[in-house]
């Protein structure tokens, strides 16, 4: 473990150690203010220096040509990548002070697989199989960077967290336990109650979601619902509660109702993103989800946002990643074509301005 930590530290130092200025010129770049055609992304010291039209740059900046499109690196709003073995303790229903960040294995093959699919940031989460399984973290898929050690207080409020052999055994019991914790909050509960730590409430079914929304409203909690397939059918309630939604990926054969639910949130302007529950899911599941939703009527801009900026906001790391705005980390993907087309693939993936996939690694 010490060796891994040391490696993580070294890797984390790498971007600054190899600081440089370069640029990539592409047919289209999806910037913070929309698509810019015939554009160049200028990177300096691992950060986005500028996004310019044409090649309007100082002549000493080397430019890489890319006949394709560029987006910010994709962000998965929930995942078990590299932490699966330590993501669950079934013996105690409340472990609010447990930090999934401690289980982060920067060398996990899950991270490499995610990176190869253009995913550069993941929210690492404990499994929602107990009432309060712990605190999530946000990590990059290359370089070992932990963007946030404490991202959300994870709460399991659906059937997955119920057991017959330990309390709470029912939805009412779950809410009673949580209400008690929030009545005189300490530790992570206090942070959540004060608005410093968003909550991530697993609520798979509609009735779970209704309970979760009422609970969040009662305690003035901000954050997101997790895996709420039919959140779109409760769009008004979700909006009133001010929560975001993290959908499970839409896979082959997903119900039309689930697809319509995503489209409905998009139309209403409710922030949402997708989870990539690695290693259970294939990394392509993230873009497959948006492809399904696009076909179902979701707008392109909203779909791309759900994969990048919106997911970064839900993760609370929008000041670091999720967009190609000036000053943000230079985490981006060179796509062979339209990033929302499953027929396109990542040609290269950069994290902190370093090419981590494709060409010279």
């Amino acid at each position: 473990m010490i060796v891994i930590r040391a490696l993580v530290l070294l890797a984390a130092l790498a971007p600054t150690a190899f600081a440089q200025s370069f640029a990539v010129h592409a047919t289209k770049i999806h910037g913070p203010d929309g698509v810019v055609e015939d554009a160049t992304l200028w990177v300096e010291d691992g950060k986005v220096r500028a996004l310019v039209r044409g090649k309007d740059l100082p002549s000493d900046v080397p430019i890489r040509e890319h006949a394709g499109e560029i987006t910010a690196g994709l962000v998965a709003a929930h995942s078990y990548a590299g932490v699966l073995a330590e993501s669950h303790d079934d013996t105690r229903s409340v472990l609010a002070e447990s930090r999934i960040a401690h289980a982060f294995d920067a060398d996990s093959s899950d991270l490499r697989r995610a990176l190869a699919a253009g995913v550069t940031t993941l929210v690492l989460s404990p499994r929602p199989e107990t009432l309060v399984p712990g605190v999530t973290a946000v990590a990059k898929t290359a370089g070992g960077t932990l963007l946030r050690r404490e991202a959300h207080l994870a709460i399991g409020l659906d059937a997955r967290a119920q057991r017959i052999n330990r309390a709470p055994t029912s939805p009412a019991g779950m809410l009673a336990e949580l209400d008690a914790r929030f009545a005189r909050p300490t530790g992570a509960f206090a942070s959540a109650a004060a608005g410093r730590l968003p909550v991530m409430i697993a609520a798979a079914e509609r009735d779970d979601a209704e309970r979760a929304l009422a609970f969040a409203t009662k305690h003035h909690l901000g954050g997101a619902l997790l895996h709420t397939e039919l959140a779109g059918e409760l769009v008004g309630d979700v909006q009133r509660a001010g929560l975001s939604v993290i959908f499970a990926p839409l896979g082959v054969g997903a119900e039309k109702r689930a697809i319509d639910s995503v489209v409905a949130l998009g139309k209403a302007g409710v922030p949402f993103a997708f989870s990539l529950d690695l290693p259970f899911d294939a990394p392509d599941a993230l873009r497959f989800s948006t492809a399904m939703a696009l076909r179902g009527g979701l707008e392109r801009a909203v779909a791309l946002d759900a994969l990048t900026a919106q997911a970064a906001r839900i993760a609370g790391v929008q000041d670091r990643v999720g967009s190609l705005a000036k000053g943000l980390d230079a985490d981006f993907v060179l796509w062979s074509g339209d990033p929302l087309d499953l027929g396109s693939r990542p040609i290269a993936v950069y994290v902190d301005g370093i090419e981590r996939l494709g060409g010279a690694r």
Partner: protein
Amino acid sequence: MYPQAIRRTVFGTVLCVAVCPTARAGAESDAQPKAAVRANGAVTLIRAEKLIVRPGKVEERTAVLVQDGRIVAIGEHLTAPEGAREIDGKVVCAGFIDAWSTFGVDAAALRDERVSAGTQTVDAWDPFVDERWRLELLRAGVTAVRINAAPNGKVGGVGAIVRTHPQLDEAHAILLRDACVALGVGISRGTRGLDPFDRLADVDRALGALSDGESYLQDKIDYKHELEAWEKAIAEKEKELDENAKKAKKDREKDKAEAEKSGKEFKEKSYKEDKRPKAPKYDDDKEVLARASNGELPVVIEAHRALELRSLLEGIEKYDRVRWILAGGSEAVACADELAERKVPVLVSPALLGQFRPEEQRLAEPSLAGRLAEAGVPILIGSGAGDALGARDLGLVAQLAIGAGLPREKAFEALTLGAARAFDVADRVGSIEVGKDADLLVLDGEPLVAGTRVQFVLSAGDVVVTPEQ
């Protein structure tokens, strides 16, 4: 789901066909309704900016005339006959065929372990499965699917190609009742993987099935020849006896009298020609396997690991007429050259497999289709047997394969003419040619590209999807 007005105009005549008793009777008979014409009188003229006649052949600014369910004319200067419905489209292409689906097959039949080679999948197929689901498939451009009972079993029975049209009677919905026979090799059940000996036993079982079919076929051929020889010998003997009838009669009476006199039992004279050759015992499984062994029916064998694939390649070599389609083929790259040489099409299902996948698919990669195509292996694509509604996502599944290296035109071919040819329905569907059934799509852009929307779908000549829906 349909607005009432559309239902009336588009399906008015179709419903008549559906309830017509003679059409039902036709469906129940064993005869294949080859290129059944739907004499519904509906006429549609589709003008296309770009017509993809078949993979690799494109015509600009032309029109397709559809009448009675079929394509009756294609040409630049076609005009719409009076009363014809007119559709203007950007890109027109053949409807997609999902080569690996469970759509409409009874859920229990999918898990049935008693399925044998002779099991007819259409017997477990419900042509009236939820219309909303059928519309989802059609809106995604999927006009036909190949179905097989017990898709994950060792034997999947006789597979069929059926349409997804929600308002068809069976005679028109079933494109081909016996499109293939399906076998599975080394497929784990649930989480339990098979050890190498079990897997090789599966290979032997699959090859044994072909061998049984071949022997049965040979027995039938032998019997036919023996019967012919016997009939000839009988005829000759009868002629000979006829010629000597008087003498024979006299001899018989004499023998009979002698027998009576001596108190013995009289025995009729026997001839060696009296012994009629025995027909081989009828066996419906072997009937099907016989057709598979001589190449009449394609054999879909699902196998994944290199071990099974190599053993199959080696064992199948002597059956040079067998038309083998390899389904799955997770490790097929290991023997891509042999598959290419033998022209074995590989039916891939580029599903989204996470880490917890069936053991035999442990090494499956989305790049499989692209790498095999590069080696010259013909590619077919199916949504897989995971979910009945998966057929709706066939286009997206194909796009996954494209993203992982399969050329777009190869993917398009796999979804249209490639599938039609592999399963012997290319005389009906798979391309847009005069005389073929009108199963086609009108798109607002190139097929298999994100953002392209299906505007109209024709199935058996009926307009079953419109942009308003």
